[in-house]
């Protein structure tokens, strides 16, 4: 037997102890073998464990330890050499592995420890992120609330709805106990409780506006925490037992239309604010969070905008209602005015006729009366009657004229007339009157003034007469000068003023007439009144001749209708005055083929009166007219042949006939063409003249087109026929103005 190193047991009888050792070792071995199994199992389970190699080592170490202890079991009794060898190998291996493991662990354990710290760090980080996440979520929810609130607020333009909705939504979003809005009163010195959330009928509870807490809130655009005991937050009496929730107040700017000045857009300088007070529920231990305050501020701004929109809308609605009312009133007024004008026109139309008829009767009969045998007193009386009734007739005419002028129903009668003769007539009319007053009248017509002009002759004469008449009326001595000249186009600009804008044009010229007198003159302050109706510059007592005061007013209307201007200048009382007016007149037309001539006024001494033996042919199917025309021509000495039909005319007409007069209804155009063809050259053939009662331009144009030499309007008087014949024979053409 080999000597073994084992210690022989001292007490071989202690088999119990041996048994216990035996069992313990067994269990130790078991444990040692099962631990690696567990390790492998769990490591396999977790894929992330980085130290596999260490585990292997550890496993080996444990296995070997177990093996050692197991082998130890055999060494308690007698064992062979193989066992000893195995034991030794196992022990040696175990020693090696355990040392290696120990060395390895030196490296590993710090790492493992740091893993732990990293884990802790990550956990903290995760917690932090969670917190932030929570914050963001609340912010987002706040944003959502704001959007929703804004939407609610802005979805209406009614002030009350806006404010009510604001309070309701805010109360809901922030779970408030009470929410109140204080609006400034009209005086601006107090804040009045206008809206509350819970109390549906707020009493008109007011607080003065200059409380320090209110000033504090108004001076900042942020939501400010205020004490629950301040007057604005004390909305209902509470028993002392519960702790009131925190209160926040924010200002709501009340913007007005005038606040939106583009220049200082960011700085909205408003003076008026409303106060919004929000109270958290009592006994809730809730506190105002930052995001909640931000929400409140944003809402306050939105409310301000919505309110301003509502205010603008109210304003525009009010303005629109006002305009509608005004419109209706104006319409009514217009209709009334129209009715009044119509009534006046009707009245005038009736009175026109009614007044003139008796007037004419009076005037006619008075003048007839004058012709009869009268005693001197009777003659005087009749003359007075005549004078007065003439005056009255003029007055009536003036008033009626002016009324027609006023509503624009008066139209100028355009016609060609002799301008020079108009002035001569006026001159002749006023000279006798002037000489009675020992006044000298001079007439000065410019040399470049055309002889003929187109315009309203009657009204122009009326105007000149009126102005000259005034000059005479208001002059006691001295002279009166009437001057007329044409304003050259270059000088037209000098006459321009606010009311008068002359424009040079080809077919027209501007005639200027100036009447100067050395009479009583006019003071400067009276000058504007001159052209107003019914005003007289002299007091009643000194008026020496009757006048309605309408004359100048009428003249002004006439001049204006003639695209002109009338004005009076005077240096002052006693220094005379100059009345001037400008009117626009046309140049008379000139046709290329036919020269338009006019039957001039009767000037018997110029005209050939002897048409003895002049052979003429008269064509008319109306027997009576035929005889009348024949008688007319025979009276003038002509040798007249009459025919009743155009065929007969064509048969009878010959070179000897100098003129053929035909009624226009008689195919005269055919006859005319026939005569033209037959007799060729103008100077030898008979002239063809149409007689017509038709005043329309078409007739005249047709006559010109068909080559007639003249057109005369019926009825023809003796003098007219005389002139017609003279003109025809001289100029071989005559177209009367229609």
């Amino acid at each position, binding site marked *: 037997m080999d000597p073994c190193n084992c210690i022989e047991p001292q007490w071989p009888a202690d088999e119990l102890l041996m048994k216990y050792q035996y069992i313990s070792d067994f269990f130790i071995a078991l444990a040692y073998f099962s631990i690696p199994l567990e390790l492998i199992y769990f490591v396999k389970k977790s894929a992330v464990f980085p130290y596999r190699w260490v585990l292997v080592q550890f496993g080996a170490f444990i296995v070997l330890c177990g093996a050692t202890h197991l082998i130890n079991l055999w060494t308690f009794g007698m064992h062979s050499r193989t066992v000893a060898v195995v034991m030794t190998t196992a022990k040696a291996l175990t020693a090696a592995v355990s040392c290696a493991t120990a060395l390895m662990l030196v490296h590993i354990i710090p790492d493992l420890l740091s893993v732990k710290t990293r884990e802790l760090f990550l956990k903290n980080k995760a917690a932090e992120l969670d917190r932030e996440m929570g914050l963001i979520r609340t912010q987002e929810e706040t944003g959502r609330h704001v959007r929703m609130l804004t939407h609610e607020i802005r979805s209406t333009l009614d002030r009350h709805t806006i404010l009510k909705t604001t309070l309701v939504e805010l109360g809901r979003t922030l779970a408030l106990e009470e929410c109140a809005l204080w609006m400034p009163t009209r005086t601006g010195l107090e804040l009045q409780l206008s809206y509350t959330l819970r109390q549906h009928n707020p009493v008109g509870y007011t607080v003065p506006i200059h409380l320090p807490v209110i000033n504090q809130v108004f001076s900042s655009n942020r939501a400010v925490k205020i004490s629950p005991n301040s007057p604005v937050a004390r909305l209902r009496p509470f028993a002392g037992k519960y702790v009131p929730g925190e209160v926040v107040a924010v200002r709501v700017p009340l913007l007005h239309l005038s606040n939106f000045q583009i220049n200082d857009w960011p700085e909205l300088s408003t003076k008026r604010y409303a106060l919004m007070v929000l109270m958290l529920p009592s006994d809730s231990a809730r506190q105002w969070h930052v995001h909640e305050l931000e929400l409140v501020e944003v809402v306050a701004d939105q409310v301000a905008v919505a309110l301003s929109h509502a205010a603008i809308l109210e304003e525009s609605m009010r303005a629109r209602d006002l305009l509608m009312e005004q419109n209706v009133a104006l319409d009514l007024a217009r209709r009334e005015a129209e009715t009044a004008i119509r009534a006046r026109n009707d009245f005038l139309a009736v009175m026109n006729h009614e007044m003139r008829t008796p007037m004419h009767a009076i005037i006619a009969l008075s003048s007839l009366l004058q012709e009869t045998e009268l005693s001197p007193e009777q003659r005087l009386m009749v003359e007075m009657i005549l004078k007065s009734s003439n005056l009255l007739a003029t007055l009536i005419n003036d008033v009626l004229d002016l009324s027609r002028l006023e509503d624009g129903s008066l139209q100028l009668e355009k016609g060609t007339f002799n301008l020079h003769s108009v002035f001569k007539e006026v001159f002749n009319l006023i000279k006798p009157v002037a000489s009675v007053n020992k006044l000298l009248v001079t007439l000065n017509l410019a040399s470049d003034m055309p002889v003929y002009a187109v315009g309203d002759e009657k009204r122009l004469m009326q105007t000149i007469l009126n102005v000259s008449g005034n000059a005479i009326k208001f002059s006691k001595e001295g002279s009166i000068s009437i001057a007329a000249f044409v304003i050259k186009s270059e000088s037209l600009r000098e006459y321009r003023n606010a009311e008068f804008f002359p424009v040079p044009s080809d077919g027209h010229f501007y005639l200027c007439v100036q009447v100067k007198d050395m009479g009583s003159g006019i003071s400067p302050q009276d000058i504007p009144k001159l052209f107003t109706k019914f005003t007289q510059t002299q007091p009643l007592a000194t008026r020496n001749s009757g006048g309605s005061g309408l004359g100048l007013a009428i003249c002004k209307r006439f001049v204006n209708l003639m695209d002109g201007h009338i004005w009076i200048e005077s240096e002052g009382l006693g220094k005379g005055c100059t009345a001037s007016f400008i009117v626009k007149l046309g140049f008379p037309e000139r046709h290329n083929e036919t020269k338009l001539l006019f039957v001039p006024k009767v000037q018997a001494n110029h005209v050939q009166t002897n048409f003895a033996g002049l052979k003429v042919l008269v064509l008319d*199917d*109306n*027997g*009576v*007219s035929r*005889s*009348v*025309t024949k*008688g*007319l021509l*025979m*009276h003038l000495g002509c040798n007249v042949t009459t025919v009743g039909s155009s065929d007969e005319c064509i048969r009878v007409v010959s070179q000897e006939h100098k003129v053929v007069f035909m*009624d226009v*209804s008689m195919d005269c155009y055919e006859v005319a063409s026939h005569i033209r063809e037959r007799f060729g050259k103008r100077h030898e053939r008979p002239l063809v003249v149409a007689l017509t*009662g038709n005043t329309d331009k078409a007739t005249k144009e047709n006559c010109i087109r068909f080559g007639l030499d003249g057109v005369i309007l*019926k*009825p*023809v*008087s*003796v003098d007219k026929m005389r002139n017609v014949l003279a003109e025809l024979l001289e100029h071989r053409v005559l177209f009367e103005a229609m």
Partner: protein
Amino acid sequence: MAGSGLVDQLKKQLEAFTASLFSEGFLDDQFTQLQQLQDESNPDFVVEVVSLFFEDSERLLNELAKALDQQNADFTKVDAHVHQLKGSSSSIGAQGVQRACIAFRNCCEEKNIEGCLKCLQLVKQEYTLVKNKLQTMFKLEQQLLAAQRTSFPM
């Protein structure tokens, strides 16, 4: 021997009567013109023309009565006649007849048969009136001429 008194009286009567014809609107200025045309070479000019007028008018009025009496009156023909009548009356200055003719022509344009009949009545009326007046005037003239012939100028 008829004194100048009678001549004056007759003259005044004639003048008054003539004046009344003008003022009452029976005659107008054209008649005056006719009167002016009467001279030594043509002493009965006015009477001749007026007689011609009477003949012409009576003929035309008959034509008109016939034309309007028919079932389907030919308004163009009626218008033509009225036109003639208007022409004659205006030539001698029979203002009343002329005016009535103008109204008549309007009715013709409107082809209003009843209106035309009424107008015809009116024209007839005016014509009769003016005819009587003119005949009276001529009689007065005759009387005056007779008185003038028998009175010796002093």
